[in-house]
């Protein structure tokens, strides 16, 4: 892999880490608030359903995770399993797609439930 690509991946992972740091904080505060207030699942769904704001927030969260985690997994596979080339690219891209698909499906479920 070229140094240029490695550099871009590094920037992508750092940038997504910044997004994740903010999203995790907001997510934990929201969870804490919901638990503190004793909101039921139905009440939570009542607030998220149709909310474009929450749809956008959790979509960004999921996409940031789908960028961040596969790049880290790639480094682990390269160093500990000696993975290289096409097979590594397939595994990493597949992992990214699965993360994005599963995450966005969940986001859509609480938006459109």
């Amino acid at each position: 892999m070229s140094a240029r690509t490695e550099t871009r991946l590094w920037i992508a992972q750092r940038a997504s880490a910044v997004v994740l740091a903010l999203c995790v904080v907001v997510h934990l505060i929201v969870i804490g608030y919901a638990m503190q207030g004793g909101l039921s699942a139905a009440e939570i769904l009542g607030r998220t359903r149709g909310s474009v704001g929450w749809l956008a927030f959790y979509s960004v969260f999921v996409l940031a995770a789908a960028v961040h985690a596969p790049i880290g997994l790639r480094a682990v596979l390269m160093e500990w399993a000696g993975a290289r080339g096409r097979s590594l690219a397939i595994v990493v891209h597949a992992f990214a797609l699965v993360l994005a698909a599963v995450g966005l499906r969940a986001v859509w479920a609480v938006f459109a439930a």
Partner: protein
Amino acid sequence: MTPVAESPVMDSLNVKVWRGGEQGRYQRFRVPREANQTVLDVVTHIQRRLDATLSYRFACRVGMCGSCAMTVNGVARWTCRTHVAKVAADDHLEIGPLRNLPVIKDLVTDMREFFDKWARAGGHHAPTATRRDDFARVAPDSRARREADAGVECIGCAVCYASCDVVAWKPDYLGPAALNRAWTLVNDVRDGARAERLRAVAGDAGCHACHTQLSCTERCPRHLAPTASIAGLKRAIALATLTGELWNPPDDEPRWPLAGAR
């Protein structure tokens, strides 16, 4: 007459020293214990008094030359400045060659790859002035000067290189010392090869392989922080990538001017 105080140390040390090349074994020696004894003193005693065939390297004996680094009780150290009292638990010493380098014989490693990586990381100064130009004036308190100062006292002992797990996992990784050297030159305002050097240290074998485990910084006998230098390189490369100046050199700029420089 005041009696001379007895040294509080034990009579002798149990020393195990690596013998052989990559394949070999530890050989046991008993070495008299002395006050203020260094690990290098112990090795020298063995070579001078007990077994003249023992091979090891040293030169200055005062922590300047960087040639006497060995693995002492599992930790890479400069042996000339390491007191036995500090490291010999229960008067046991196990002395081996540095990790991550091919063993030539006994305590001597082949340092070629270590120094070749300095060259690959653009470790040469690329001057922008000639001898007819005036001296460059670099403000001591400028940020670049302070960054360069922080890393410039490296003595090339390879303790950081031997302590780095990433080097063990990725033999191509340039390693902390070479990257630290590159960072001092990136911060040298007299240097004219910034972009080439940043390209040379970017990527999988360069600074982006570092996991910030800090072993190099923990073990550096000069108390340098190669980890900080590597982080600096990552920042500089990211910035130069985002501004577009790094990966699209003008056609008249030689692609790897540093590679052939000597």
